[in-house]
C-alpha cells in the first residue's frame, strides 16, 4: 500500500504479510469485507492524500477523504502493522499480501523502518508510464 499526494507530493509505502501477522484470520475477514469492485471517485480535494492499495488479486485507489468503514480500518491496520518492530524477515513471504509495488523481500529487510520513501516515479530504473487519464500532462511537441 502506498500513499501519494499531500502538500508535499511525497510517496510513502507500507507493506504487510498477512499470514505472518499475529491475527491473520481477522485480516482475512477484513479483506473480505472490502468492496473492491466499488471504485471510489477520484480525489478532487487539493493537497489531500490518495492511497493505492494492492492486495492480491485486488487493487484499489482510494482518496483519503473516502477512507471509511473497512477501507479505513484496513489502511489503519496496515500502517500500524508495518510500524511493528516484530515485522517478519524477508525470506518468509506467504500470500496473500497487502503490500506495495516494491519487492516484499526488499520491504521487510529493515525491521526498524515503518515507512519507506520511494521515487515518485515508482523506481528510478523503470520507464515512466504515461497517464491515460490526463492526456494533457504528457510532454509533446506542441508545448
Amino acid at each position, binding site marked *: 500500500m*502506498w500513499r*501519494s*499526494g*499531500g*502538500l*508535499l*507530493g*511525497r*510517496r510513502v509505502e507500507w507493506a504487510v504479510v498477512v499470514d505472518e501477522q499475529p491475527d491473520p484470520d481477522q485480516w482475512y475477514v477484513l479483506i473480505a469485507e472490502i468492496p473492491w469492485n466499488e471504485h471510489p471517485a*477520484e*480525489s*478532487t*480535494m*487539493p*493537497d*489531500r*492524500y*490518495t492511497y*493505492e492499495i494492492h492486495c492480491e488479486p485486488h487493487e484499489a485507489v482510494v482518496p483519503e*477523504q473516502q477512507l471509511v468503514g473497512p477501507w479505513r480500518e484496513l489502511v489503519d491496520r496496515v500502517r500500524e502493522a508495518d510500524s511493528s518492530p516484530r515485522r517478519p524477515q524477508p525470506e518468509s513471504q506467504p500470500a496473500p499480501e497487502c503490500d506495495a509495488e516494491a519487492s516484499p523481500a526488499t520491504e521487510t529487510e529493515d525491521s526498524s523502518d515503518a515507512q519507506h*520513501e520511494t*521515487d*515518485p*516515479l*515508482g523506481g528510478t530504473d523503470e520507464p*515512466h*508510464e*504515461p*497517464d491515460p*487519464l*490526463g*492526456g*494533457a*500532462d*504528457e*510532454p509533446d511537441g*506542441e*508545448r
Partner: protein
Amino acid sequence: MFRMPNSPVSPTKSPRALCAIVPPFLLSRIATLDDPRFERAAHAARRSLTDIGHDHLDHGRHEHTLPPRSLRPDQTAVARGTISRAISDAQTGEILPGVLVRSEGEPETGDVSVSEAYDGLGHTFALFWEVFERDSIDDRSSPLEATVHFGRDYDNAFWDGSRMVFGDGDGEIFTGFTRSLSVIGHELAHGVTEFTAGLVYRGQSGALNEHVSDVFGALVEQYAWGQTAGEASWLVGEGIFTDEVEGNALRSLRAPGTAYDDDVLGKDPQPAHWDDFIVTQEDNGGVHLNSGIPNRAFWSAADTLGGFAWERAGQIWFDTLTNGSLTPRSDFSEFAAATIAAAVARFGDGSEEQRAVEAGWALVGVVPTTN
C-alpha cells in the same frame, strides 16, 4: 473584521492609488512595534493606517473592533473588503469543521495554531484585497474558514472545497502546518482558483493549480513581510520541518528540486525544466512535482522585473487566473500564452513586463501556444 463597515475602501478605488509614501505593510509593521525607542514612529504609523483605512493591519496584536459575523444585523450589507474569519478546532479528530473557537474580532484563545491560522488568513485576505481588489476567495466577501488540529499527528494541510484544514504534523518530519504563512496562503489560493479558472486537479492543469497556489502563497508572505523579489526566500513551507530534517521548505520557486535533501524524505523531486517533466499516475499526475516548472518561470519573471513581485509579475498572474483566458484543462503552453497576453493587456505590447514573462517561460522550456 479587517475593515470597519462604515469606513470601507471603495471597490472602485484601488488601495494602491492611495498616496502613501510608506506602503501599508511597512506602516503595519511599524505600528506594532513595542520598543519604546520607536514609540513616536509606531504612533504615527497607527495614525496613518487609520487615515488611509488600513487600521485592520495590526497583525492580530490588538483586538479587532467589529462584531463577530454572527452578530451582524444584516449580512448582505457588509461592505466589500470586509474580512470574516472563523477558526475551528478538530481536537485531533477528522470530523469537519470541528468546534468553532475564534470568530472575527474575538480575542486570542491562547492556542498558537488558532492564532497563526487567524493571522495567516488575515494576511492572505490583505494581499488579495489590497493588491488585487479581490474580495475573499469568491470576490463576494465569503467567510474565510479554517480548521486546526485536524487528525492525530496528521502531517498535511489541504483545501476541502470550502475551508483550509491544518494538521499538527507528526513531530518527526513536520511540525504544525499553520506555522508557515506561505502554506496558509497556498491553501486559500486553491479556493481562489476554484472560483476562477477552475483548473482540474490532475496532470498539467493540476500542476498549474498547484503552481498558482505556490505563487500566491509566496506572495502572501512577501507582502506581509514587505520583501522585494530580491529579498524573498521564494520558499513555500519554510519552517514546517522539524530540526531533524535536512531541508528548508516544501518547495523552492527560485530553484525547484533543492528545497530538501534528507535521508528520510529523499531529495526534492521537483523538475525545473520542461525537459524533466515527470509523467506519473501518482500525486494526481504529479501535480506537486511538475509545478516546479511554471514556478521557476514565475520566479524568473519576478526576479527580472525586481521590486515587489506582487506589483507586476503577481498582477499578471492574477489577471491570467481571473480574466477568463484559461480553461479547466489548460496546459502549460496555454497558460504561458495567457500570461503573456495578460502582460500585454496590462502593461502594453513590447513592454518590459511582457519580455520578462516571455523570458521566464523560455528559461523553463515551455513554448506558449494558443488553441
